């Protein structure tokens, strides 16, 4: 069944929607049948400056050029048979800070948890 879904996603990790994060989003999108479009929104609901305003969730370059930083909100729109599930997974990924913080803190501080 084709369906459309949309949801606001907040970027909470320090590095923003950076290369590795965008890579994970792309891999996620490839796992689903639905298409994903990300749209940058600012506080007042309008589009904020700097970079593209919409990005294809299957393109790392596109997502990077959104320049989505910590604290930014994105409007995620999915269309396809598993649109809702895709957005749920995306939200979870964003709330897990794109699994990236661990990498970053490891490399900056040498031994992470010894």
């Amino acid at each position, binding site marked *: 069944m084709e369906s459309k879904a949309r949801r606001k996603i907040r970027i909470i990790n320090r590095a*923003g929607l950076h290369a590795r994060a965008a890579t994970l989003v792309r891999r996620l999108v490839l796992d689903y049948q639905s298409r994903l479009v990300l749209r940058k929104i600012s506080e007042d609901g309008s589009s904020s400056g700097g*970079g593209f305003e919409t990005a294809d969730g299957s393109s790392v370059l596109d997502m990077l050029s959104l*320049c989505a930083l910590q604290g930014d909100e994105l409007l995620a729109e999915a269309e396809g048979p598993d649109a809702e599930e895709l957005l749920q997974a995306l939200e979870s990924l964003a709330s897990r800070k794109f699994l990236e913080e661990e990498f970053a803190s*490891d490399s900056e501080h*040498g031994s992470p948890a010894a």
Partner: protein
Amino acid sequence: MLRLQGIAVSSGIAIGEAMVLGREKFDVPDRLIDGTAVEREIERFRSALAKAVEELSRQRDAVIRELGQRSGSIFNAHLEILQDAKLREDIENLISERNYAPERAVSRILHRYADVFRRLPNPNFAERVNDVYDIEKLLLRSLLGQPHSEVFQLNSPVVVLAVTLTPSETARLDRRFVRGFVTETGGPGGHTAIVAQGLGIPAVVGTGPFLGEVSGGDTVIVDGDRGLVIVNPDGATLQEYREQYRAIEALQAELRDIRGLPAETLDGTRIHLFGNIEFPQEAETCLEQGAEGIGLYRTEFLYLGRTTLPSEEEHYQAYLQVIQTMGDRPVTIRTFDMGADKIPQDWLPRQMGWDNESNPCLGLRSIRLALRHLPMFRSQLRAILRASAIGRVEIMFPLIATLPELRQAKFVVADVMEELAEAGIPFRRETPIGMMVEVPSTAIMLDRYLPEVDFISIGTNDLLQYTLAVDRTNRNVVSLYSSAEPALIRLLAQTIRTAQEGGVPVGLCGQMSSSPIYTMLLIGLGLRNFSVTAGAIPEVKKVCRSVTVAQCRDVANHVMEMENARDIRAYLREELVKILPEFSRLP
């Protein structure tokens, strides 16, 4: 003479002739193709793209082999972008709809992205413009078949100066001849920093623009400790740096010479040095540096950056690789040590309430999470135990804070052993089981734990964090975070003494053990087993071989009388330099 202050990212001194890496120029034919040739040109583009992907993968694998996983991972974003379906479509559309030649289409599309990136307000994102140019170059080189530029064919030692170094440029440099790196842009976590550290050569980044004032062949000094770059130094400066360089060389030669010798103090007390590793490939380096085993094998890499749990087999292979490298030397594998905030949601049932972690350091992490998610924990333990049949494996639990946790974890191990025995799968029943002491509660109650463990290893990083209530990633309070903190040292002294009285081997695997500044203090406190990063083994060994235990005890006794971290650190540094003046460059 031109002096520039940049950011020091890889320590040491390099003196050599400048080699300025310019941006490669390609002649992009400004031509249109014949309408009938569209299919053929698209085919040509696709095969060039495939070739570029192949080339880049090969470069990445070579870098991983030579410099390790961390350096290799800088290529992943490139590979991901090269395989971007939208990028390919955009380029192919220009070829098919507007009859652009593939070269021109590649340039046009990538420049469009570059223009957007360059204008981005955030420097981390704007820096990506270099990746875009790098990808353009890769594709054009693949399309035009141009030979590698001559600057990459070196035959004499140079200091490489560049605006920025892209990963593929770095991979193509002949590393035998590169003495140092300087880049105008970049920060501590950038490509140059990672590669330079991997190679162990001095590097300075973020100097700001200066390449216009340098010609190839100029003499350049790179001071990778102070972040200084000096172009065409005057006689006195050059002299001064040559002396420092010789002193460093002499020390390094000495460190190389003692590689095969034991870490024995002047009065004959044997100190044991083990390696800390994060990735399996690093075991090799530990062995080269003379490690007696692996004292801490972190297993988090198996879980990171992926959306599914690693299988038992993946665990097993990763352990096997290290065990085989280490031969009959012991390998201590630490079980899962991550927070609930770090792992994908799907792994854990929602009802655990872990998604409300407002304070992850004090939350559901490490052994606590393992004990709450037994299937995940058991599959790791099965893999470790299977590996115990092949080599000298030891199991170590992280973040034990209460006795019941230790008992529970040991119970799970016993249960997994039964399972393996029933299935007839070989393992070593006497596999030593130990724990990290990294929570103050465990240090305080240590005597009660000792009868139930085969060894302990003190994790000073977390122990310090929990003792002082300081988050070391928080800039506002990080100044409180020092291994020279007297409260930590007192806790260490107690822990080491209690373990020795209980007859249980005690090691230390935090960052503190890797810094030669603390070696005398730790020996003085009674520590005999150090687990350190591979690169630190020679320096720590050098200290061990230059002191007596009595000397170290005096130092430790003096420190126990002191009251603040700054004074203690300054004192330890002073004592070390008294014995080993060549260590005076240590920060």
